[in-house]
Each structure stands twice: as structure tokens, then as C-alpha cells.
């Protein structure tokens, strides 16, 4: 692998021990995947340090203590507890205290600490041709497919990329890999974010981790729907990039021969309905929580929720959770949107979500924290991503429906299906 003078100097320890470790790790990664050299990155969405995993917050504290700093604009991924409104989720205080230590480590590293799976709604908006690294697969697919930035699906190494400003040139950092591998023809008219998560989920199940070219949508999806489409694919199939001509830079749709000769797959309304059916395993009244905001809600979605809940009351015995990032929560508060939401009895939660909080049973926290996941009958959701991981991580049934009908469900106490 060809290293720049600065890469080599970092490897030799010229920028301190933490950056030496980071560069050595990035070089190993690059050599494993035949990278010729490294690229300069312009943004990193990095690991928060997760309080529900033993020694994980300490991993970030250790880097911070050794002087690590973010060399590029950086945001933090979702965490395991709301560090402000934690009582609303009944999280153990011990867990919250540990989670806040990760926040402290990020402050000292200079990370923009938004603790979210949607840093773009908090203002982190990388542009076309910006190389970047991301620990969150939903961020990867949105940035590749909607913004035209260049990102792989990373793990912890997004932190090393942020610290050094460098990343090995492989995967979707190479333009040759940013070409369609399959042609998807959508023969349906999805409406709203839930439909788009289900459409994405159906596509991802077909194409696994390749690059689908999407045709046939009757209109340009809005930003929330584009976000939903990508996370659906990233959840079921590991898709890191889709190509929607006219949306995905630089594809206008006028490229001669675009999609010619590719394997072709049709997705019908019945395929979208099948995703809803697959994630409706609970009973009509046997649920404890209704959840909105996966991925973390945008300001536009907060406006929508506030309008749906204005003057209404959540049914006694039901909890309505709205998850968003702390930046959007502040925007919503300033815009007066939190008042009607709070008056309805709904909870607005940041930094985490049902699958990321102490509900998950697949985590491995320090036993001394005393984390005990609650027994839940079922969770009503408006996202195929949340549904899939509730099944896999919380191990309880789900009921998937549209945002509007999930709100109706919370108000009536009786599940209102999408179809």
C-alpha cells in the first residue's frame, strides 16, 4: 500500500500514540482489501461508546486520554440511553452515568456529539464526492445514495478515520464500485416513510449487498422517504448504496445504456404488504409501546407528529415514544412542537431508541450496572428497520403500520393496520 508522507509519519508516531494506533489499523484494513493508497476524508460518523457493552465506553475514554482528536467534522452515532430524559425510559441510572462518560470522551476529542442514527437531520450533510466513514449503515446508504458522498459500511474504524482524516481506498471509495448491479422495477405507489422502509426491505432481501438501480417510482420521494428507503435496504440486505436516477449523484437517468443487461427484478405492492405481514406478529390489543422515529425523526416528521397529536390523548396503559436526535428535539422545542406532543402524553426521547436502549437482550453490559430488560408484550412500530431489530434484539413481537395509523393505535389502544 502506498502511504503519503503524513501517513508514514503518523505510523511512526509523529502525531502521538493514539494516531499511530489508528493509522496502523487503517493500513492493515487497506492491505486486507487491496487498497492502493488512502483518501482524504471530509467527514466521519463515529462510534458513540456504548454503555450496554462491557468495556466499550472505556474504549473511547482510552483514546481521549491518549490525546485523540477528530481531524475532520465528526458526529456520534446512537447511544444506549437518553442522557437527558432518561427517566422517561426507566433506564437504570448506573447505565446513564456510564453513557455520559462517553459523551465526555467525545467532547475532549472534539466530536460533534449528536448521538443519533440521523446526523444529517442535525446538520451533518456531506456533499458530492466527499469521502467519509460511517459506523451506521443507514448513514452510509443515505450519504452514498442521496448526497453523493462516498462511504463504506464501517465499524469502529470510522473513529480511526475521523482521528487521522484518512481511509483506505476500497469498496465504495472507488467509482467502479458505484455502478448498478441490478435493475429494480417498482410496480407500486408507496406513500409515507413506513411504506418506503418496507419497499427498501423488500429490495434489500432480493439484492443483498449489491447496488440496485431503482426505476418505476411514480414520483420523487421526499427526503424522509429517501432516508426510509435506504435504511430498509441496509437492514434486510446490507445495501450500502442504491441508485435512483435524478436523485443519486451523478446519475441523471439520461446515461445511455444505464441498467442495460443487468439482472432485473420487479417489486409489486404485494411484496411491500408481505413485509408488513411479516412484522405483524403481535395481537390487536397486546402491546405496551407505540414507537415513531426510526431512523431518528427529522424536524418535518416532528411537525407531522405534533399535528397528529394536537388536542388528543394517548390511551391509558399505552406508551407513545417518539425518538429523534437532540438537535432536532431542540429545534422542535423552539418551534413549539413539543407542547402538543407532551400534552398528549407522548414521550420525546433522544440519543437512543427501543432497540438501542436497555430493552435489548443481545447486549453484554457489565453485570454491576444491574441492567434488566423489561418484559414487553409487543411494540407497535412505523419502520421495518425497527421491527426487524426488535425481533432480533429485544425478542418480542411487533406490529408494523403507517405513522398515521400508529398514532391512531396509540390514541385508541387498539392496533390499526396499514392495509
Amino acid at each position, binding site marked *: 500500500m502506498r502511504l503519503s508522507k503524513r501517513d508514514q509519519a503518523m505510523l511512526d508516531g509523529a502525531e502521538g500514540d493514539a494516531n499511530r494506533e489508528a493509522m496502523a489499523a487503517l493500513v492493515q484494513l487497506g492491505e486486507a482489501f487491496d487498497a492502493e493508497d488512502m483518501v482524504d476524508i471530509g467527514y466521519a460518523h463515529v462510534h458513540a461508546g456504548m454503555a450496554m457493552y462491557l468495556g466499550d465506553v472505556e474504549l473511547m475514554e482510552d483514546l481521549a486520554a491518549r490525546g485523540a482528536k477528530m481531524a475532520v467534522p465528526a458526529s456520534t452515532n446512537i447511544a444506549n440511553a437518553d442522557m437527558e430524559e432518561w427517566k422517561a425510559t426507566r433506564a437504570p441510572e448506573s447505565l446513564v452515568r456510564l453513557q455520559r462518560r462517553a459523551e465526555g470522551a467525545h467532547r475532549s476529542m472534539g466530536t460533534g456529539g449528536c448521538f443519533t442514527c440521523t446526523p444529517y437531520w442535525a446538520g451533518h450533510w456531506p456533499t458530492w464526492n466527499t469521502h467519509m466513514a460511517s459506523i451506521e449503515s443507514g448513514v452510509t446508504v443515505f450519504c452514498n445514495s442521496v448526497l453523493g458522498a462516498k462511504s463504506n459500511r*464501517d465499524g469502529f474504524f470510522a473513529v480511526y478515520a475521523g482521528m487521522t482524516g484518512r481511509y483506505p481506498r476500497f469498496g465504495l471509495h472507488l467509482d467502479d464500485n458505484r455502478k448498478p448491479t441490478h435493475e429494480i422495477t417498482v410496480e407500486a405507489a408507496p406513500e409515507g416513510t413506513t411504506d418506503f422502509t418496507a419497499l427498501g426491505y423488500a429490495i434489500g432481501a432480493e439484492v443483498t449487498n449489491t447496488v440496485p438501480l431503482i426505476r418505476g417510482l411514480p414520483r420523487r420521494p421526499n427526503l424522509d422517504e429517501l432516508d426510509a428507503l435506504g435504511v430498509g435496504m441496509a437492514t434486510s440486505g*446490507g445495501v450500502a448504496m442504491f441508485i435512483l436516477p435524478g436523485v443519486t449523484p451523478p446519475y441523471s437517468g439520461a446515461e445511455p445504456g444505464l441498467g442495460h443487461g443487468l439482472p432485473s427484478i420487479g417489486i409489486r405492492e404485494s411484496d411491500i404488504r408481505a413485509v408488513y405481514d411479516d412484522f405483524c406478529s403481535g395481537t390487536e390489543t397486546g402491546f405496551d409501546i407505540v414507537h415513531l422515529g426510526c431512523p431518528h425523526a427529522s424536524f418535518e416528521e416532528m411537525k407531522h407528529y405534533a399535528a397528529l397529536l394536537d388536542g388528543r390523548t394517548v390511551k391509558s396503559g399505552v406508551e407513545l415514544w417518539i425518538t429523534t436526535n437532540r438537535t432536532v428535539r431542540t429545534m422542535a422545542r423552539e418551534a413549539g412542537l413539543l407542547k402538543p406532543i407532551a400534552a398528549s402524553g407522548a414521550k420525546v426521547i433522544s440519543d437512543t431508541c427501543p432497540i438501542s436502549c436497555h430493552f435489548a437482550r443481545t447486549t453484554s453490559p457489565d453485570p454491576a450496572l444491574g441492567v434488566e430488560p423489561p418484559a414487553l408484550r409487543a411494540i407497535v412500530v412505523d419502520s421495518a428497520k425497527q421491527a426487524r431489530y426488535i425481533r432480533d434484539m429485544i425478542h418480542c413481537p411487533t406490529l408494523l403500520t403507517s405513522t398515521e395509523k400508529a398514532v391512531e393505535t396509540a390514541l385508541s389502544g387498539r392496533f390499526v393496520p396499514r392495509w
Partner: protein
Amino acid sequence: MTRETRFQGRGIVNGRISGPALVSRTPFSFLGDVDIRTGTVIGELSDLRGRNIAGTVLIVPATRGSAGAWRFLYQLKQHGTHPLAIITGELPDPSVVQGAILSGIPIVSGLADRIGNQVTDGSTLTVDGDGGVVEVFET
């Protein structure tokens, strides 16, 4: 007498260590296939179900994809239930590579079939992730 056999593969993650072989013929997922606290394989799709990967040289044809695999490898390390080294057939996922580098678990790829056909569980292997060499010691 000890018979020694040397295999040249591709070094993916640096480090050199010896340990007992555990051979699998099915792709392995570090997210979901293994109980972090004990190292016991619980995945229904794995032929290692019920076995323990802690302290072994784990030989698998491929790793099954998940962006979260790195965290679970690191959690195995934190709990002391990690494999000492991993030998794969196919190149492992980037997330597995990241988790192994973070956890100091050497990986050599391109050898799972050749070694899996020659050794039995418990044979002592020495894995050199820097040079991509695996040595087999059988008594």
C-alpha cells in the same frame, strides 16, 4: 513423533499465536451465532452449535455479513471468550477485520478448506497473521 505441516495463506490481521483447532464447514456470524458471555455457539445455522470457540483457532469457510460484527468480536475479547485466531476460506467482511484488528485476533484467509481437511479438532495450530502462515502440529 511430531509431524509438522506448513500452509501459506494470506495474512489479513497481524499477530502470532498457537492454540487448538476448531473446524467448521458452515459460514459463521459473530453477531448472533455465539453467546458472548460463554463463547458457546448458539446459532442454528452453524455446525458448531453447542461447541465453545473461546481459546480456539477457529476455522470457518466464510463470515456471514453484518456491519455490527466488529462489536461482537470485541465483546468476546472483553469477556475473555474470543477465539485466539481465525482462519477463513473467503476474505472476511470488513467489519470482522476491523473487530479482529481492534481485539488483536490474527486472521489468515484462503486456507479453511486445506487445513480443515487435514486437521481434527484439538490439533495444535500456530497462526502467523503477519506472514499468512499456519503451521500444524499433530502428535
